[in-house]
């Protein structure tokens, strides 16, 4: 009981600190706006973003009927932009989740057991970190076929080693601390030590990594879709730019290009801001400077 009370208190304190952090708050608000448009897209004047319209409605500039205009297949750009946030956020959050969970688990095992287990795991990590990320993602996405889930998978496969490296070095120092030693002395087994004692102390780090990974995953999805590896059944900001670029008429249809670019940049910037805020707050001593 007291443990869970302690955690909710910590979470509340964390949120309070975040709201007091100018950059963090700005980022959080923009993210929440995108989250809202993703959730409520059908109620915000959206039509089916993938449905082609009538011939007369091709490449129309913004108007009262089409708020952001239409593309070369007479599809509504406002709807595409709003639905696009679903793809970015889904890929971002899912890939970050998988990456951080996998990365933490491997880092925990490597750091805790040491010896040959650590040696083998860290060589694998080194190998992945040496490979150029984007080409590897392109190759995997091309081979697996274009779909949203494959993009999530591909981004996760390429990104987990970063988290492993960070978590491992944290675990190396944590396992030497007295509280782990004390727990071992009263007979705690390895699983208890790893998940009961060390893991809770890695959680803040996981959180910071997750925000970073979301940013990278959103970026990766946008690039892959722009290169034509996006999910053909779901319009994303990257694939909007892909179609605009391929159409050859994007110079005459700025309304087609500006919304996806602005959205990508806004979402990435706001997650970067949030990331900066989170790492600031987790820095030891930050709380004291804010009078907590």
């Amino acid at each position, binding site marked *: 009981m007291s443990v869970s009370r302690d955690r909710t208190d910590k979470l509340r304190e964390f949120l309070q600190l975040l709201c007091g952090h100018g950059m963090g708050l700005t980022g959080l608000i923009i993210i929440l706006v995108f989250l809202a448009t993703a959730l409520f897209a059908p109620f915000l004047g959206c039509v089916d973003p993938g449905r082609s319209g009538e011939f007369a409605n091709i490449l129309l500039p913004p108007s009262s009927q089409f708020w952001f205009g239409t593309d070369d297949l007479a599809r509504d750009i406002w709807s595409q932009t709003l639905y696009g946030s679903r793809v970015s956020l889904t890929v971002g959050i899912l890939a970050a989740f998988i990456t951080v969970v996998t990365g933490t688990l491997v880092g925990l095992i490597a750091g805790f057991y040491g010896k040959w287990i650590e040696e083998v795991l860290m060589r694998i990590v*080194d*190998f992945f970190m*040496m*490979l*150029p*990320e*984007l*080409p*590897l993602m*392109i*190759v*995997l996405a*091309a*081979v*697996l*076929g274009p779909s949203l889930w494959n993009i999530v998978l591909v981004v996760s496969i390429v990104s987990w080693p970063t988290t492993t490296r960070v978590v491992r070095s944290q675990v190396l120092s944590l396992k030497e601390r007295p509280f782990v030693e004390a727990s071992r002395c009263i007979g705690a087994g390895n699983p208890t030590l790893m998940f009961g004692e060390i893991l809770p102390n890695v959680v803040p780090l996981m959180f910071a990594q997750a925000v970073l990974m979301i940013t990278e995953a959103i*970026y990766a999805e*946008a*690039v892959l879709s*722009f*290169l*034509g*590896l996006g999910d053909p059944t779901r319009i994303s900001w990257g694939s909007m*730019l892909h179609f605009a*670029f391929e159409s050859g008429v*994007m*110079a005459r249809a*700025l309304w087609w*290009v500006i919304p996806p*670019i602005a959205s*990508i*940049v806004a979402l*990435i*910037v706001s997650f*970067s801001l949030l990331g900066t805020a989170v790492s600031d707050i987790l820095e030891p001593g930050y709380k004291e400077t804010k009078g907590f």
Partner: protein
Amino acid sequence: MTGLHWFALRKGVAAFLTIIAILCANFVIFRIAPGDPIRMMFRDPRVSAQQLQAMKEKFGLDKSLGGQFIAYMKGLSRGDLGLSFSHRRPVAEVVAKRIPQTLLLVVTALCVAVVLGVALGALAGWRSGTRFDTIVLTLSLTMYSIPTFSLGIILLLIFAYHLAVFPLGGIVTPASGFTGIAYARDVLWHMLLPAFSIVIWYIGEYVLLTRSSMIDVMGKEYIITAKAKGLKELGILKNHALRNALLPVVTITGVNLGFAVAGVIEAETVFSWPGVGRLVYEAVSKRDYPLLQGVFLLFAVSVVLANLVIDLIYGYIDPRIKVRG
């Protein structure tokens, strides 16, 4: 053997093993693809069974997996990367033709980014907390968040379409017949926008890194000593602070090469720059797997080799490695 020799040997062996692992991974990746590769290539249902069989034999897919692996390794040792579907020529030949253009673009962009980034970062770190520092920091963070291809599209729309001061793409004006200086000027004019979009993204990294490294160094005792001796400020910046602040910058250049590849693929795609990066885009849109495989191999192996070179340079300039090995 001195410490430096051991260090070089260890790094060399590690790089060699990594390259072997990359070659194996490259083989595996293209065989985990769901479905029959030949069927994927020729989706036309009219292709007869005999024709499919002949295709399988041509690409060596009739052999067992082990046999395929041996054939793949043998081919690689001869510099044979297979046949490109879309170009109908050896992959190695197609890729090799694109390398000089990419090198020109990457090396130019990297040099500009490193020089400008280090200079701006060092000044910002030297004067940390001032308005100059804040502006540089904010700009770097923002620029760092704009994907290269988005920035490329913006630049293309503004400077090539609407203002028409730069070309829409390519490396030279077609059928212009330029030679000598005029040719070089034409290439430079074509290179400006793609290089700029890579530089902008890349520069942020160098600014942030040099800045924090500089702030770190500025707190060291030898800087205080130098100030106490009454040395000129600029002299301290140049001879005492910057020299030491640059060590981590050298390391990060190696780490960043992998990211530089991403910038190249995006910029070359947007500006139709006829390099290896644009080849990735072409291979993807034509589902030309052998070509994609070849380009991936080239990128991965060159990143490993470049890292090896940087490690060796680092070993040479960092005296601690000479002693410890």
